[in-house]
């Protein structure tokens, strides 16, 4: 909670009124499934928990629909961090969407790392509809982590 207050102070001091997408105020994009994580995020809301406002959520039916292409596109459009989140293994609303995607993510992530993308910038999580607190923790930690990265993150997505 204290961190949150400090965060708030910082934001007030800052001149930016909107999330600028800079390294100090990074834009995060979260691709979440409709059934678990989106509901988990809603629960954080109905529980009036507070968390970093750097994140923008894009809702999809299932982690099975969340394509690595989306991650690439988000980085291309200036996101400093991309989160993918869905139902825990075994809880997929569509039985196996998260299992199939998990394989793809594990591989894609290796490939990104090998090609020089800082893997601190891509995060995956399983957040259930009852884990509002986990959503808050994941978003806050991820935001902090991204902010702590060196400014000069050049990688294959950046135009030189």
């Amino acid at each position, binding site marked *: 909670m204290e961190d949150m207050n400090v965060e*708030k102070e910082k*934001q*007030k001091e800052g001149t930016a*009124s*909107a*999330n*600028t*997408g800079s390294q100090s105020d990074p*834009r995060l*994009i979260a691709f979440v499934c409709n059934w678990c994580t*989106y*509901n988990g*995020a*809603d629960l*954080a*809301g*109905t529980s*009036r*928990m*507070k*968390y970093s*406002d750097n994140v*923008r*959520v*894009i*809702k*999809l*039916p*299932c982690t*099975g*629909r*969340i*394509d690595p292409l*989306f991650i690439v*596109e*988000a980085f291309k*459009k*200036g*996101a400093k961090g991309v989160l993918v989140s869905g139902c825990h293994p075994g809880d997929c*609303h*569509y*039985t*196996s*969407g998260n299992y*199939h*995607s998990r394989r*793809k993510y594990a591989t894609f992530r290796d490939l990104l790392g090998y090609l020089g993308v800082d893997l601190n910038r891509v995060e995956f999580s399983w957040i259930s509809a009852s884990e509002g607190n986990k959503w*808050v923790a994941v978003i806050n930690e991820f935001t902090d982590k991204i902010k702590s990265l060196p400014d000069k993150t050049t990688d294959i997505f950046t135009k030189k």
Partner: protein
Amino acid sequence: MSRIGVFVCWCGSNIASTVDVEKVREEAAKIPGVVSAVDYKYMCSDPGQNSLRNVIKEKNLTGVVLAACSPHMHENTFRKAAVKEGLNPYFVEIANIREQVSWVHEDKERATAKAVDLMKMMVEKVKRDKPIEDVRVPLNKKALVIGGGISGIQAALDIANGGVEVILVEKEPSIGGRMIQLDETFPTLDCSSCIMTPKMVEANQHPNIKLYTYSEIEDVSGYIGNFKVKIKKKARSVVEKDCTGCGECWNACPMHKNVKSEFNLNLSERTAIYVPFPQAVPLVPVLDRSVCLHFKKGGKCQKCFDACGPKCIDFSMQDEIIEETVGAIVAATGYDLMETSMYGEYGYGKYKDVVSGLQFERLLSASGPTEGVIKRPSDGKTPQTIVFVQCVGSRDPEKGVPYCSKVCCMYTAKHAKLFAHKVHGSQSYVFYIDIRSTSKGYEEFVRGTMEQDGAVYLRGRVSKIYEDNGKLIVKGADTLSGNQVEIAADMVVLATGVIPKKGSDKLAQMLGISYDKYGFLTESHPKLRPAESSTAGIYLAGMAQGPRDIPESVVSGSAAASKILGLFSKSEYEVEGTISSVNEATCVACFYCQRVCAYNAITRKEIKDRSGNVVKVVASVNPGLCTGCGACVNACFSKSIDVKGFMDDQIYAEIKSLAV
């Protein structure tokens, strides 16, 4: 050209206190294609909805974005309102600025900026929305029930009583399943055949039920509303419609010693032509060709044929394939008892007087091999001391299965109780790890076995059973007293656990429904959709889903039936239109989409030219089965498949709208 209306909801102060709703509205108005932007105190209220409808009408909107509470709250409300003005319901999108903005952030400026982002994102999405029509699938109002045990019979009767035709298919020569093998039932001790037989007869005589016994499912294709089923009616060698069940044939059969009765679990013999048990339904014998002398000795023996009055024995009968079209299916394939041969230490199979729980049921049963008198299989003597061993195979990941079989605690208590009732002065000992007696009257029943019927319960497993001087020495432990215990018993009953019926995995594959690693059929949702399989139109009942007792099996049969009656109460089955579709021009038929589809919704489609030559093979989506999860899109390398409601170009536009 899009004509989008944006409606920003205050939600009283819930949104408005943290988000500058006017700012959001102003930003919305600037977006190309947005022809109307309003804010209102409560969009979900009647006046709010009316204003939404008015704007749709007046401005002739092609799409609506509500910046309001979570779509899980009011998406449906607003869609319904839009439909009333002739707008396709899927042209309504929600930007969640309450649960995911105003309630979780505090800095008003930044929260407003985020709300604007989300609103813009949804405007971009709605611009690309395509009209989606819900899919209507015609229904063949006939149901197939697979398995004629208690849950299958219950399901069939309930459906039939609802006025719907049912086909009931049973693998064995008679319906009745496992329940008809039981003696009395816990916790009320009513006689199983007394309550089961009337149900079997009712199923047989019901005008809406067509019964196929000694029959198996050969093939299933199609989808909800329209399953094509092939049933193999195995050659019974007896013409069912002519047979009177008089019994002259099996009385005449010379093979009366060497064939073990499956129904009595090898505790007695049967003839080559036989009914499995006297109350069989239908009461028509079946001729077991694998042991019949007529078939083994080149047609010489035909004693049954000679004995039969109506001459209904037909040695030349062939297997028959029957095709049926049904709209819904119930899988109630039941269970088997676990094999205990892996327990060398318990000597099952080696010592005749070590029997399984179901074998003991037959020994208790008045219609069983001993006519209800408890006799040891080895020498026919009545045992005075019986040791019951619980959790044999269950809760044993090393040799058996890790799960609890649920019914063994109760049936063992029943066994001990009935043993006490039948053999006065006898003594039973029960080795248990935990007692699980959680339904109505169950705990009292178990206590009664101990307190009134004198069964001694020992908390521990048995390590070894061996024979000594005609007695079975049971070496167990009682962990409560911390002692090793040896009991000299006349008989040992192993409370063997339950496993899915052999072959139920094969059937599941045929049906395209999922099953767990043990072979139990899995529910669409373990809590909220316990009667449905993962495939639309296929329902589950009974032990095929996992260990359960008789009342639960009956309930599940009824649940499946009520689901089907509900389904059939409409003229057509409606599926949400948010399903996948294939771009046939670019599809190369690698079928990764099919591999990842959990619903078997992807099929092979051949595109033919005018003369009927196949020019191309492509993937095709079955609208009755697709649930719109989108896993196929992720699997497709060339993006030749897309899912309505979450199309690739929409996601792309959403991401683009968030560019910084």
